[in-house]
């Protein structure tokens, strides 16, 4: 603690009296400030609802079993959504809306409400679905592991098997 305090004091005192330190501090602050801004912009940007519309397929997760989850998600522009199982059978149909502030898909059914969200990655935003089937609020141990949903195309009206 004393070392850190001393080093900080020395650093600060040196900055005041030594122009080479001042240049170093300003240069480093500038570079780190730019990187911080870039980091923030990589995370914070608007995602309009229209960009989410489409058909998504559940991807794989190493080590975890996800076969109990729907394989296909369809988000339609009319505000309806469908989830389809591994054999193409429909397991859920309902209304959805996009909560851009929380970056989560709200559904008028407690089982699926807030279960699908948009997370940021270096390669861009990606939808992901909670693996646990316990409703979010009832899940006190917080089983919040997720599986990615990969966009496989625009909205496909009717069956997703075509």
């Amino acid at each position, binding site marked *: 603690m004393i070392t850190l305090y001393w*080093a900080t004091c020395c650093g600060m005192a040196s900055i005041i009296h030594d122009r*080479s330190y001042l240049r*170093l501090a300003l240069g480093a602050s500038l570079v*780190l400030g730019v990187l911080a801004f870039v980091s923030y912009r990589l995370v914070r940007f608007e995602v309009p609802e229209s960009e989410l519309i489409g058909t998504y397929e559940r991807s794989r997760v190493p*080590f*975890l079993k996800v076969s109990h989850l729907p394989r296909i998600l369809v988000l339609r522009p009319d505000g309806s959504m469908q989830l389809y199982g591994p054999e193409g059978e429909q397991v859920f149909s309902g209304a959805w809306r996009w909560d851009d502030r929380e970056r989560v898909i709200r559904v008028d059914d407690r089982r699926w409400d807030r279960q699908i969200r948009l997370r940021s990655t270096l390669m861009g935003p990606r939808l992901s679905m909670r693996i646990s089937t316990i409703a979010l609020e009832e899940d006190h141990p917080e089983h919040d*592991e997720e599986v990615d949903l990969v966009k496989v195309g625009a909205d496909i009206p009717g069956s997703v098997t075509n």
Partner: protein
Amino acid sequence: MNLDRSSLDIKREQHGVALLSVLMFLFMFVLALIPGVKAVEGLTWGASVDFHRDAAFVRAVVEGHYGEDPIYLGGSLWFTPMVGWIEACAVWITGLPVDQVIIQIGAYSNLLAPIAFFIMMWYFFGPVRAVVTVAVFLFFIIGREPGWAVPTYSPRLIPVSFCQWFFYIEVILIHRAFMTTRIGPSIWAGAGAGVTFLAHAAPALIAVLLIFTYTVRSIVKAIRSKDGTYGWPRLRASLAAGAAFILFSLPLTMIVVGEYGMQVVNRAYFLYNYYGLTLRNSDIFLYHNVALINVVAAAGLYLLVRRRIADTTERFELARWILLAWFALAFVLMVYSWVVTVLDGTYGIQLPGILPAFHFYFYLKAAWVVFAGLAIWEAYAWVMARIAKRGTAARLSLHLKPVVGFFALLAIACTLHYPAYATRRDVFAVRNRNLEFMERTNNGEACVLFNKMLPWDAVILCEVDLSVWPLLPSARKVVATVPNMGNPYLDQSQRTKDNDRLMQGMHQPGDDTRKLLDAYHVTHLLVRPGDLPAMQEAGRWFPVEVFRNEEYVLLAR
């Protein structure tokens, strides 16, 4: 920037390195803070049962009943009180509601964890390795795990996440105590362990065992070498540390030792097993832990064991011993606690318990963070030595140019990883769980209402799920709650049985209903409106309807 060595001598370069290290720390600190603050923005209630328990203890302080059990009438304080004190102070200073303070304060208070970690690492290994270990601590160790199971910055003020900073400072105090046989530094170390115990038992236990094992080691060495000048002074200093520990932990120990004799009756308190550590969920353990950072940390452990880590602060030998002992103690305690849980749950074999295993897993991972950071710097130094013909890791960390290069790589790595980090489950899912809870409970309306409506010593009979919500955070008493939220020094199973019999007595006449109602000083009955018509005896015992809405009916005797 003129980084020419001709214009900067070694000492000035070291100051430059220190300055850059502080700036790097601030850069990472701000990056971590942003999602933390956003995670609690606008929240007024937390969904976690841990928050409900903490709210009960905060309300006990705020309402002037410190030292009393807010859940069972007649019980005494059983939970480490530091977090409750801090939250009660924040309530008093800000004037905000208890539950809003509890959910909001963590984003700021938990910043002490990375600060303390940075200080600890700078103290032991100098500024450069302090920066890289903080990067691992903040951004890379968490991976896919919940924030409460891993040592990192998490925006929730729960004891496990908040209290780690006491341990990091305590490790420095222990190091200073072990460097000498003077009594003063040992008293500081003992006092630090005592204060840590008030915050959280797991880090305090590791700290006490560190002091104990080092003392035993020193005395054995002194006896073997027949060195009379060291053994006794060391023992004397460690005894002083023990006395300071007892003194500073008195606000809790005087109750749990004085009143309860440390006799844990309710085993559920330590039998809780983090789902990522259960045999059934071994796939989740692998999912969480098969990660590059763990391989790097394993390499760091190897380097440390083999003394391949460069010494830049002349504290290496003792620091190495403390780190390895910390790692080993956390590992042994974790395995033991895990075995206790598994044997109890699977075979009914009851070994003495300590705490849930994940608390020690947490500190095992904290040592793991240090190993990973050390390995990353050593790897950079190794590459520089071969490619750029630079010197050793120790020498490299003293010069500005290689450090600037290293920090640039580190800053880029943090930036590239940041999108995944800033929207990690620990921030997103927890926030959404809280929002859903706030929606469902209409901002905790029922809890606030019962807290205002009922006196401190009211005892409410209810089903166990209602004892958690809305009653637990209201700090109003119940006959029985869920086992892991109940006083570990009171017989939980008997309370659960009696609660069941009393609830049965509300449906049909029971022989012992009056006796049990009197024994537990029950004043109210809380039920759901839909359940009441089937409780034909309820009106006999609780004739006065105090409150009714769509969710709850409260009756009084």
